[in-house]
């Protein structure tokens, strides 16, 4: 599943994920017609609209054995909110629950489903990892992305102070309250720069857009990367 930000702004992340999964022996398909998971609508309170988006996503992925998403928040949306949004639709209730079960965020898919903890990658550099809120608190995941990073021989992982604190993105929050969002981001980036890392890694398109946009604006030498781009660095933007 490639959701809106990945489709439009970070196609290289999706490409890296596809190549990585194929290298690990997974047959990858991409059902055409994907748009967005509907989280922006849901989080802003437009639940009926979000349900329409959820309904078509459920239908698109009906045939898949597993659905892998390179974004913790989209995975969280599908896994925790779709069943609730479609619970009153007799035709979609069970398929929504099935999709919730078979959808995985990339790092969780690699480690929990494939049982892979080390991926051969020529990546070289010092990285620090940001726990995006929906992956950390929504899906309870902090370990697997770190394990995968540590498994890359040339990758030195430095812990980020306050790695579990929000980057200030929050979807529409980032433009409804841009000043507060930017102030929260400022704290995050100061922590990032204090680590001396070359790259800031995260597993969520929203956080990467926020933190990456802040890093380039302040002329930082730190690059924001998705985990997939470390594990399959041929596709680094």
């Amino acid at each position, binding site marked *: 599943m*490639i959701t*809106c930000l*990945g*489709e*439009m*702004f*970070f*196609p290289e992340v*999706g*490409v890296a994920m*596809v*190549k990585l999964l*194929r290298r690990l022996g997974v047959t990858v398909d*991409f059902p*055409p017609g*994907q*748009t*967005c998971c*509907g989280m*922006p*609508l849901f*989080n*802003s*309170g*437009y*639940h009926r*609209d979000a349900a*329409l*988006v959820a309904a*078509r996503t459920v239908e698109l992925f009906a045939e898949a054995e597993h659905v892998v998403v390179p974004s913790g928040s989209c995975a969280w949306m599908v896994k925790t909110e779709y069943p609730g949004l479609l619970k009153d639709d007799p035709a979609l209730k069970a398929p929504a629950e099935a999709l919730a079960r078979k959808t995985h965020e990339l790092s969780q898919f690699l480690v929990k489903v494939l049982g892979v903890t080390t991926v051969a990658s020529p990546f070289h550099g010092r990285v620090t990892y940001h726990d995006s*809120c*929906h992956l950390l*608190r*929504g899906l309870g995941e902090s370990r697997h992305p770190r394990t995968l990073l540590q498994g890359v021989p040339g990758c030195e992982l430095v812990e980020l102070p306050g790695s*579990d*604190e*929000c980057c*200030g993105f*929050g979807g*529409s*929050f*980032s*433009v*409804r*309250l*841009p*000043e*507060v*969002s*930017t*102030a*929260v*981001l400022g704290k995050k980036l100061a922590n990032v720069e204090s680590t001396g890392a070359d790259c800031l890694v995260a597993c969520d398109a929203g956080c990467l*857009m*926020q933190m*990456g*946009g*802040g890093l*380039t*604006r302040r002329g930082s030498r730190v690059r924001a990367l998705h985990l997939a781009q470390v594990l399959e660095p041929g596709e680094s933007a």
Partner: protein
Amino acid sequence: MSDTQLRTPFPQRAHVALGDAHLQEALTIATTKFIGLRKESFAGYPAGEALRDRARAIKEATLQRLDQHLERLADNIERLGGHVHWAATGHEARDIILRLCRDRGVRMAVKSKSMATEEIDLNEALEAAGVKPVETDLGEYIIQLAHEKPSHIIAPAIHKTKGQVADLFSKELGGRFEADPEVLTAVARKELRQKFLEADMGITGANFAVAETGTIVLVTNEGNGRMVTSLPRIHVAVMGMEKVIPTMTDLMVFLSILARSATGQKLSSYTTLVRGPRQPGEVEGPEELHLILMDNGRMRQIAGTLREALYCLRCGACLNVCPVYRQIGGHAYGYTYPGPIGILLTAMLEGTGAVKDLAHASSLCGACKDVCPVRIDIPRMLVELREHVDREKIAPWGERVLFGLARRAMTSPALFGLGARLGRLAQRPFVRDGRLRGLPLFFGQWTRTRDLPPVAARTFSERWKDLERP
């Protein structure tokens, strides 16, 4: 906050807070300290997680039979010689206190920290009626001197640095005091000692009230709560109806996690258990005890969206970890209760209309839910409030049009693809070094402080065509 201040839009209030260097310094120091202390406290307390679950279960079970627990509490307090008053609104609660003051010739009332009395603007009402309220919690004392409102549920003066407090004391109390917390505390202590002895009435809130024993419980750190409940001849406690708990055993569960969540303490320095007024043969305690059980918008939420918010213990942990609260402090929210839980409580007390902006004052990061001792799902309820704002059509017109368009694009791949192509065309004048800057209109909210990646030359769907044929 006054109506005039509330007329300033919320983003503007946040803007002012972000520009206040003293506030930023004070908030960073205090919230960082609270976060660390809480974390350390629970890390060394393996039973904590299970107790949090149990506390949550007790709250839920209590709400299911709230009427019975309240009646039992009232019966037990009356049996001990106390009086119980039922207040449907904040206005009624205030009137009950003012009537007591008038009937009993009260001239001065000492108060221990109470958000319930803040909620009903009691101090202003007392002053208007010629009764002098004196706050005796150090933080409350500071903000009373400064003519301000609390900006945190448990640390009312969290927005002030010690330097500001020293200046305030020097100006208001006469003298020149250094910015040393010990010195300043000693000054307040000396000022307050006489007030405790002079006051006719002691006014408190209540952290809990135990139905089976009729015990009112106060959790404090300065001992002022004990003085307020024992020295004046009348003690009045104001409590939200949801705060009743069934048994003393339940109380132990809550006490074991409350202070840990709030300040990282195992227990607060003082836990005051008040059981009725002074009994025959006792040498201390008030002659009269009054408990005011206040509804003020709470009870309709038992069957409402905000039901879980009725579990709240008022520990303040969710404020300390909230990235928004940590940046703007409590006053910018504009109402009695700030922070993530404060948005829910404001909706409860003032209605959904009051929080149509505040409901969006959260990145939904979930840190609040994570630290809440009773695991209140605050982000979920914030989203539900946003849904109410949508359903009641009180969201701004432009926003509704925008989200309507977004829904169309998200349900039509053709439109979605067209959006990408249009974006690619429209962004051309704004691309600098492969980044978008200085975008107009609504997009400027982003690009004023952050770069935006341009819409890719080829979207993933377009690139998939190559990937399909490896």
